[in-house]
């Protein structure tokens, strides 16, 4: 550290990428969070497919191969459910960690735009989340294709469609958790609200036929609609809600925009 030699303000040069790296660092070094999320994604896939493979190995007459389309559906159903929980955990941490630790104030006094601080959380959190999901997907693909045995292995098109659908669902719950976490400033409240919504409220709403088209706004209905047909019977939750693909996409986009918009607004306006 040297003495001051100039008083003129230097031109501001503040690239965005280091902010994203800082978000990744914060999440990656949170061992409890990463281990839990890894257990729910990679760990769950290892356990599930190991059981399927062992069952088939020890009793092939009663248990089919561990691979194939059916077990792609079963695996993806599990990964979508637990992966979305992992996404909620990571999103809530990304949205609220700076606030609960008090570091948000330290970041604001750097003069950095609050909007930039918020925006960096999106790619930062997704980088951590997607790396876990990618590892889990590698397991799914390896087993369902490599151990299909006598049943049909999933096609490349089905695998691609499944992965895209899975990533959209995971990213959606991450974005909503990030926005809600930034809005509330509480990781625990965010997780509680979204888990209740995801696990309890969504299946109930989707099964109430009397709600009619109002169910279109429930994200679970949109994900049911967008799921690849070949694995639809495995991954669709609650009652079927007839809706167009466009309506499903609009519903998910609207939820995402509202959640992130509220999070950004609160980050920009809250007392730090």
């Amino acid at each position, binding site marked *: *550290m*040297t*003495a*001051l030699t100039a*008083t003129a*303000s*230097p031109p*501001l*040069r*503040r*690239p965005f990428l*280091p*902010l994203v*790296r*800082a978000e990744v*660092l*914060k999440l990656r*070094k*949170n*061992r409890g969070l990463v281990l839990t999320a890894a257990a729910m994604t990679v760990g769950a896939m290892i356990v599930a497919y190991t059981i399927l493979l062992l069952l088939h190995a020890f009793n092939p007459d009663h248990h089919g191969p561990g691979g194939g389309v059916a077990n792609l559906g079963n695996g993806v159903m599990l990964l979508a459910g637990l992966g979305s929980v992992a996404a909620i955990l990571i999103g809530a941490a990304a949205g609220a*960690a700076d606030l609960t*630790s*008090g*570091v948000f*104030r*330290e*970041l*604001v*006094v*750097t*003069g*950095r*735009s609050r909007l930039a*601080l918020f925006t960096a959380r999106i790619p930062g959190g997704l980088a951590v989340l997607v790396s876990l999901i990618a590892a889990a997907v590698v397991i799914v693909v390896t087993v369902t294709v490599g151990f299909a045995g006598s049943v049909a292995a999933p096609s490349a098109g089905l695998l691609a469609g499944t992965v895209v659908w899975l990533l959209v669902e995971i990213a959606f719950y991450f974005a909503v958790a990030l926005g809600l976490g930034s809005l509330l400033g509480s990781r625990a409240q965010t997780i509680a609200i979204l888990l209740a919504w995801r696990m309890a409220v969504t299946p109930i709403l989707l099964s109430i036929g009397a709600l009619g088209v109002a169910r279109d706004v429930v994200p679970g209905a949109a994900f049911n609609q967008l799921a690849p047909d070949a694995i639809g019977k495995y991954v669709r939750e609650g009652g079927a809600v007839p809706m167009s693909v466009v309506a499903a996409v609009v519903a998910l986009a609207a939820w995402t925009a509202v959640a992130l918009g509220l999070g950004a607004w609160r980050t920009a306006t809250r*007392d*730090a």
Partner: protein
Amino acid sequence: MTPSPFVIETAGLTKRFGGRTVVQDVELQVPRGSAFGYLGPNGAGKTTLIRMLLGLTRATSGSMSLLGLPVPQRRGEALARVGAIVEEPRFHRYLTGRENLEIVAAARGPEAAHRIDGAIERVGLARRANDRVGTYSLGMRQRLGIARLLLADPELLILDEPMNGLDPAGIEEFRFLIRSLVAEGRTVMLSSHLLDEVEKTVDALAIVDQGRVVVQGSIADLTRNGPATLMIASADNSRARHVLGSHAAVSSIVSEEGILRVQLGRVDERVEHEAFADINRRLVEAGIPVYRLEPEHASLERRFLEITSRLEEAA
């Protein structure tokens, strides 16, 4: 363009929470290149003023500038050369000291990242920089907080109650650090309710009470403004008291534990010195042996109490 002589200027700055006014019409000028104290009792609005300056909360009315730049309009530019600690410095406790600095450096810009090693070295945390902050003592977290604000290579440092919780050695170290930062040409503004520490550390200060700045100026000016007092110890204090009772410059004499505290009326420095000499001469001429004759240093604490007691009387 000549930089403003003041690094912080506020005009009519006011903050209200509902019907409660926490900061009221504050007019503050912090001179460049000084250590400036913002002194007041707990609840006087010190932290709220700092939070407004840093854009952590919005002002209800009034205007302010940092380093000559109006805030909040040019807050980003201004804060790029400002380092601040508001209340206790906060960190992600599960990250190491160095990682916490990396996070703030990422927000500040690439130059800040290059200053991490130097900042850690300067605050004496090199051996613990790779330990998790959760294992640090309060003093170490304070030092890491200083390292974090040095990442900005700041022209202005704003420290809110920086000596809270430090042990005497830590306070001494902190005082030395502040003086060394000022010697480098930086300005340090620190808020505190610890009068003694402020007096030892700063060149100038503002005294704040109930959200208002009641007086500001250099330490020398503020402590000189009170009436001069002589402390006299002699072989016969009662006769000395009688001799000085009729002196024109003396306004009161109080005997305390064998010492006469002789207070003069409000006079300028030259007249004050002449009165001291004349008092000494009269005692000697009266044949009273004088053991001690010493102008009392008007402490900031005495001055602070005078000001706040006047305010209470006026209320």
